[in-house]
Structures are given as C-alpha cells and as structure tokens.
C-alpha cells in the first residue's frame, strides 16, 4: 500500500531511461507519482497540487533531465522542497511568554489532544524554563473535561484554576487572568472544549475567549493522523480565531503525517511541537527533516 517514493520513482525512471535522455514530459510523469505519494501520505489535495507546481519548475532543469540518476535527483528536489516548506521562513523561536502572566490559548477539533498537550506544555515550561504555570479548563461541554485537566495538573505538579460550576468559558478565562495576575504566575494556559470548525456558535465562543484573554500564543492542536480535512480545519480556525502555531499530536503512530504539510501551507504558521505519546513527557519540538522523510516514506 505505502510504497515509498524512491521505489515508485525508480520504477518510473527505469521505464523512461530506456529511451535515453529524459524529456520534460518524462519528468512530469514522475511528478504524477510524487503527487500520488503525497496524497497517500494524507497531504491535502490543493496543497499537494501547489507543491508539485513548485517542484516542477525545479525538476525540469537540465540537472535532472541529463542526469544518469534522474530518479534520485527528483527525490532529492522533492525532499529538499518539502523540508523548506515545512520549515517556513524565519525561526519561530520559543513560545512568546514574556510579560507575565502570558496567556496561551489551546484550540482544535474534538479529541485532537488539547487537554493532554496543555498539560505537556505546562510541564515543559515548568521543568525547562522554571516558569510558574496555571492551567484552566474552559471546557464546559465534555463530561469530566475539567477533572481531566485537574488530575493531570496534580500528576505534573502544576496548579489548575479551581472549578466553579456554572461559569461560561469567557468568565473562566477572566478568572484565570485575575488569578494568574494576583498570584504571580508567569504563564496561564487556557484549555478549551473541542469544536468543529463549522460550528459557528462554538467558534464564536472561542473568538470571544480570545478577545478577553488576548493570548500571546494561540496553538491549534491537530491530530497527526488527519486526512484531507486538514485543509478545512486549518483555514477555518486560522480565519475565525487566528492561530500563532500548530501542535501535531499522535505522531507516535504510523501515520504518514501529511497533515503537517497542509497545516504549514494553509496557515503559514510554524508547527511548534509534536506529541509522541500519552505520557506527560511525550512532546518534542518540530523537526522538518523527520517529517519530510516520513511523508515520503523514506
């Protein structure tokens, strides 16, 4: 099923090289294989399309068509371009948490990993940067969502905002801000309920939370196993709420991670972290080389 790209291309070029030097048409044939590989790796269709267009310009040059190993040349061009796209421009640097208390807003679809990632990041900020962190659950929807964050807080030794039944998310965000200011926290993290990007009411609610909290970072938490819908999720969350970065979860799975490319392309925002498990330490900074190889099955 998931034949890797090198194999795919060597098959194509074996057929083609029998006829001597490659024509531009031959390269195009090869790029169709690249396209299939990207789609099988769950890169969203419009993103795959524009990516191929970029690569095509670079791959139709003499360096490829006159090469004795055109297949490898194309793979290299695709691989390099993938890394460049995933990395994007400029160094994203660290999370913006100057000006204490710095709010960080976590958003995303249902079950994408927001609550777990909130706790993982809180732990990371505490352990690595010595920050005093407060976590607050604004999830008034999902059963036991607030308890989940509270339990994780106890596990990792990070405070959570006391649960007050009956408050709405905006009220909780305000209380988190007050509490964080009064008690000298460096960072406060707002975990929110999962919401569909097309759920107008819940998206408006998240925008209202954003407006009262003025987050320094708004992280879109996305399941790394996401398929073609990535393009819709990225577009809508970025348009309606505005994101400053992306976290890809479940990258400990055997998914090919094409959603990384879609997210990066559509939002133009850096992928900050990848989640690599359920445990509280299972989070790492994003490395474009690793994901590029994975998308190409190399």
């Amino acid at each position: 099923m998931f034949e890797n790209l090198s194999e795919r291309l060597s098959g194509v070029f074996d057929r083609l090289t029998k006829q001597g030097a490659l024509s531009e048409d031959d390269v195009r044939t090869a790029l169709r294989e690249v396209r299939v590989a990207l789609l099988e790796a769950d890169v969203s269709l419009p993103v795959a399309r524009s990516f191929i267009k970029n690569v095509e310009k670079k791959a139709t040059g003499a360096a490829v068509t006159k090469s004795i190993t055109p297949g490898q040349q194309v793979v290299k061009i695709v691989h390099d371009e993938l890394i460049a796209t995933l990395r994007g421009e400029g160094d994203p640097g660290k999370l913006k948490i100057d000006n204490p208390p710095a709010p960080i807003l976590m958003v995303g679809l249902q079950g994408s990993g927001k609550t777990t990632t909130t706790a993982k990041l809180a732990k990371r900020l505490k352990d690595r940067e010595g920050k005093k962190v407060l976590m607050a659950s604004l999830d008034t929807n999902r059963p036991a969502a607030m308890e989940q964050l509270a339990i994780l807080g106890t596990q990792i030794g990070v405070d959570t905002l006391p649960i007050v039944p009956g408050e709405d998310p905006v009220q909780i965000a305000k209380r988190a801000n007050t509490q964080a200011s009064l008690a000298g926290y460096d960072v406060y993290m707002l975990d929110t309920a999962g919401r569909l990007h097309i759920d107008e009411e819940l998206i408006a609610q998240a925008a209202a939370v954003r407006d009262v909290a003025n987050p320094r970072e708004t992280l879109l938490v996305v399941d790394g196993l996401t398929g073609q819908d990535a393009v819709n999720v990225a577009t809508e969350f970025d348009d309606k709420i505005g994101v400053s970065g992306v976290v890809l979860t479940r990258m400990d799975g055997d998914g090919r991670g094409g959603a990384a490319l879609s997210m990066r392309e559509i939002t133009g925002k850096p992928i900050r972290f990848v989640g690599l498990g359920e445990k509280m330490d299972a989070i790492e900074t994003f490395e474009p080389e690793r994901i590029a190889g994975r998308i190409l099955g190399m």
Partner: protein
Amino acid sequence: EPKRALDDEMLEQLEELLIASDMGVDIALRVTANMAEGRYGKLLSATEIKSLLASEITRVMEPVARPLPIYPKTPQVVLVVGVNGSGKTTTIGKLSSQFRAAGKKVVIAAGDTFRAAAVEQLQVWGDRAGVPVLTAPEGSDPAALAYDAMVKAEADGADLLMIDTAGRLQNRADLMEELAKIVRVIRKKDPDAPHNTLLVLDATTGQNALRQVELFGQMADVSGLVMTKLDGTAKGGVLVALADKFGLPIHAIGVGEQIDDLQPFDPEEFADALVGLERN
C-alpha cells in the same frame, strides 16, 4: 443543466473529488473507471455524473451497512476499541442509551483505567443513558475489570455488557498485547465473547484508518466499525476503501456530541454526501 462529454479531464476532476473525501488514490481511480465504463464521450450533466458516482459508491457500501446484531444469548459482550480520542467513550454512551430505549438491560464497564478522568467521563454517560457503570481504580488491570464485569452482568441478568477501553495506537505492540489479553481473559468466562468488537474510527482520519482496521483486526478480532465525527466537513471516504478491502460491517455513525447523535449507516446518504449530491 448544461451537459459535457465525459472525457479524461472530467474523469480527473471526479477522481480528485473522491480523493478529497479520503477515499485514497487507488480506489478513487477504480470507482471513477467503473462509473465511466461504457459512458466515455457521452454527454452528461453534473447532477447525472454525481448520481452515477454515488450509485457506484452505494453499490460498494450496501453490503456493509448492517446494525449491531443482537443475539439471544445474554449477556452479549461488546468490546469497544480504537485509537486515542476517536470517540469510544461517547459512542458507548450513545449506544447504551439506544439499547436501553429498545428495552435492553445494559451494563457498562469502565475499562479505560489509564487516562485521566476517563472513568468520571463514562460515569456521566452512564447517568445520561440511565445505565450502571462498573469501575476499577485508576491503574488497575483492565482485563481483570472486564472479567469481573462479566460475572456481574451475568448475575444481574443484563442483556448487554459494553466494555470501554483506553485509546491506543495500533503500532504500539505493548498496548495491543494488553488488548489481546483483555480478549483472552474475557474468553475464560465465555469462549464466544466478546460477541462484538467495535472499532471506533474518527472521520477526520486519513489513510491511516486502513492500518487501524488491519492491526486492531489482528489483535482484537474486530467484528464491526463505527465512524464518528461525520457532522464535520470530513466525508469519511476511507470507509469505501475499508469496505472494499475488509468488508467489515459499519454499524453506526456519530454525528455530534449529544446522546442522540448516533445514526445507522445509510449507504445512499453517505454516498450522496461524499460526492456533494443534493437530492430533492
């Protein structure tokens, strides 16, 4: 409605429509090719083309559209498995409510003894559905809980026992072995149990769903599928590839977070939504 000759360009557009639903390249090519057979060059309107594609997809999906079978022997044990966050716990709440409304006596076992507040979450669903939830302390052995729950369900004369499990990725051999152990222990009590093993898939998942079905199938003998989160823009096209490759029944679909947001899988409705066809 204007008509166009069915040509290569149009076929490519149709393939892309299907690929964008997560159907996967291979099966998208096959479905369009089947649809085009004998029609190449014919003048067709957009609606006609979409209806033809939809019928082709419906044809593949009809054999797998089957509700969860109910057996005369009780308690019928239903084990619910899947990757993290796919919707297992919520689906158990919804299913329990439906079965209870149908007059069945249901018991739930909170077999996710790992994730923070998983038990509390399921208890809320149990309350909503009006069904008792059997629990064990966090960190305890889920296989032992499953066994105890079977004993209790039998003693209470329950018709159905729904067992929740912790989410796990199918490539995690250790966690998959834990699942296999749950099945082995359940079989000590009743060699025919679990009578159903439901794999819960998230509609936003792409091609990885194929690996999920394959590996959960190997380790836990999956007998049927539920796809959640079809209330979003994800079309769940990978179900077509799954039907083609594994032929497992699709028992239900999740279309929201509320207790009634579970529907039978309707192949025609699914196919229409997939190709963007509105019937009046």
